[in-house]
């Protein structure tokens, strides 16, 4: 079994004078759902294309399913491009079957899987309609079917949830988890942090082509320490009444940590005041906080 399903090392790519990916390295492990984060225009799509050999890096190396990105290996990869890549005048079933057959499935097998998945995503009644008659979300789901129909070992999705309504987002997530349970590895790019927090154990974050973070999401959050403390209690101790206090809708009070204030000090204040405490929770920074902080810092540096 491979230790790393995808490994990129020092990938760099420039378009003219602009370096869009700069010395990026990360890896994806078998069976995981990996989140590839970054703001718009950060170089995510270019990195994904280089990882599959669609475009050539100026420098750096890629190992995908234990090999260089060559066609024989890429048959085992399912890819959902950021921009829908379906022939607009083709019928939905024909378009799916065509692209799935290119992944070495027979006509019958490709059609049967396409049919089955179209039913699963609620597009079966559109199978004989032309692609350009579908809504953006429907096209995205049809494209998603192409990425998973040949049951690839590695599924790479570029902004998979964009253009989808919440029901379809949920459906796609469930189908991805289903594929993960069947042994597939999944990597997807996004700039929506809640999706990553919900699904991914490990992440990479890039901005302006530079890798800012890479690793286990829990570790990354822990490294940043406790960001605040939330206390649900009958009142607020006098010594804690300050600007660093925020009252949440359910009367929970949130205290920012820093400038000499520690969770332990806050706890001791409550204990000393004799106020009854129902809940006391150390709050880690959210991925959204980390994202904004890291990207803002990187932009300031540049």
């Amino acid at each position, binding site marked *: 079994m491979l230790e790393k399903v995808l490994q990129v090392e020092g990938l760099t790519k420039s378009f003219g004078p602009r370096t869009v990916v700069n010395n990026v390295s990360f890896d994806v492990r078998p069976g995981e759902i990996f989140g590839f984060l970054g703001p718009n225009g950060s170089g995510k799509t270019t990195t994904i294309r280089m990882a599959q050999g*669609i475009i*050539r890096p100026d420098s750096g190396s890629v190992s995908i399913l234990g090999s260089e990105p060559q066609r024989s290996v890429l048959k085992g990869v399912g890819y959902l491009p950021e921009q*829908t*890549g*379906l022939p607009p005048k*083709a019928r939905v079933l024909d378009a799916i079957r065509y692209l799935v057959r290119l*992944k070495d499935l027979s006509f019958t097998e490709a059609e049967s899987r396409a049919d089955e998945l179209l039913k699963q995503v609620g597009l079966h009644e559109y199978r004989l309609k032309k692609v350009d008659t579908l809504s953006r979300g429907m096209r995205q789901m049809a494209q998603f079917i192409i990425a998973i129909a040949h049951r690839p070992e590695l599924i790479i999705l570029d902004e998979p949830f964009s253009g989808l309504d919440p029901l379809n987002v949920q459906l796609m997530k469930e189908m991805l988890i289903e594929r993960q349970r069947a042994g597939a590895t999944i990597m997807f790019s996004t700039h929506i942090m809640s999706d990553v927090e919900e699904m991914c154990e490990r992440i990479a974050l890039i901005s302006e082509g530079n890798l800012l973070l890479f690793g286990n999401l829990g570790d990354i959050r822990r490294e940043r320490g406790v960001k605040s403390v939330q206390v649900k209690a009958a009142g607020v101790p006098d010594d804690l009444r300050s600007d660093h206090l925020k009252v949440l809708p359910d009367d929970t009070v949130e205290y920012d940590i820093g400038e000499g204030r520690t969770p332990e000090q806050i706890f001791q204040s409550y204990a000393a005041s004799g106020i009854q405490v129902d809940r006391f929770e150390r709050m880690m920074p959210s991925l959204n906080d980390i994202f904004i902080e890291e990207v803002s810092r990187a932009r300031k540096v540049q």
Partner: protein
Amino acid sequence: MRGKSNETWIIFAEEVRRHLRSGGYLFFTVVIALLMVAAVWVVPLIQEAIASDAPPAVTGEVDVGRIGFVDNSGVFSGLEGQAPVRYGTLAEGLEAYQRGEIDSLYVVADDYLESGKVEQYAAFKTAWDENWDDAGAFWGLLSQELLAQQYSQLSPELLAQRAQVEELVAEQLSLLSPDLVARVAEPAVFKNFKVADDGSVSEVVPFAQAIGELIVPAVFALLLMFSILVGVVNMVTSISDEKENRLAELVITSASPFSIMTGKLLALGTIGLTQAAVWVVVAALTVPAMFDQIPDLSGLAIPASLAVTILACFITGYFLTATMAILVGATANSTRSASQTAAMIANVGFVPIWLSGLLINQPDGLITQLLSYIPFTAPTGILMRISAGGDVTGAEIAAALAGVVATGLLFLWVAGRVFRGAMLMQGQSFTPGNLWTALRNAD
């Protein structure tokens, strides 16, 4: 290798399906076929219209009293007092014409017996109007008068004997072999042989066959170009669309550039030949019916060698232009610019047709020969040269078309690598330098 051929087949099938569902392709195929069918009815109408312009004949319906003439020759004194009105001078005749007394005025030249010259003055309302009715009537009058003058110089006895002899001859002839009588009426059906300056002898092709050899290649050269135009624009926009909408990204990770290009090329060739086959079948059904109605073409024959040449030019021409289209589609930055360039490259094949005036006058001239040898113009150039009566040998045709195929194969190889290279180098515009890089790096 098996995988490659399978990928090619899948791409081929998809392209064929896409083209067959394309409105433009179906429309063009059906419209040409319908035009051929319509021609079966239209050609006889044209033929009828042409027949109405036939040489003069006295119908008896013309009022010869409205024909005037001036006899400067003095030969037609016998016409004096007859229905056509005699005038002393052209000026008098024209005055009568302007007064509306006559519809046509004929002036017999003073050297008429030597030259046969007669000037005709009439309305001539259109460019095609030859005033045949009045001209035919006057022609008949002149003829009758001249015959009368001839016979008036013979003795009455001789004329009576002539009548008796003619009666006897007619009686005897009715007893003779019909073949002999027919031969007497048409003593020779000529078969012509051309003797060249070097003494070599070659048969001069019969008129119907000559028409076949002239019209058929020219018509097929035109059809080839129209077929190519439609197919090429479809192909270029298909490739460029795939690049634009990222479909190419999915395909290129599953199939080799060569498989993609070959699949597309075979599909384009197949749909082009299918289109041509439809036209040929419809032509086979309609053209004989059409030619049967034109007396001189009822025996039209298309030699087998010509049919083979047409087919070879069609296939190779399609192949080369399609590979050029693929190359354009691979290098184009947008579908719009690809379509414009496609129309330009498809028009290269039209050059021999544009220069048909030159080709007809100099079917074996230097430019004509070059057009039939240069790969980009050879398929239509050869057909147009044959059409113009040029002396094109089988070996020349074979060599020129081999050049077309070789150029097509080279383009196919380049197109495959450029298609791949264009994506590998995404974001960079094509320059001779990075085109070379693309060719080297694409796999």
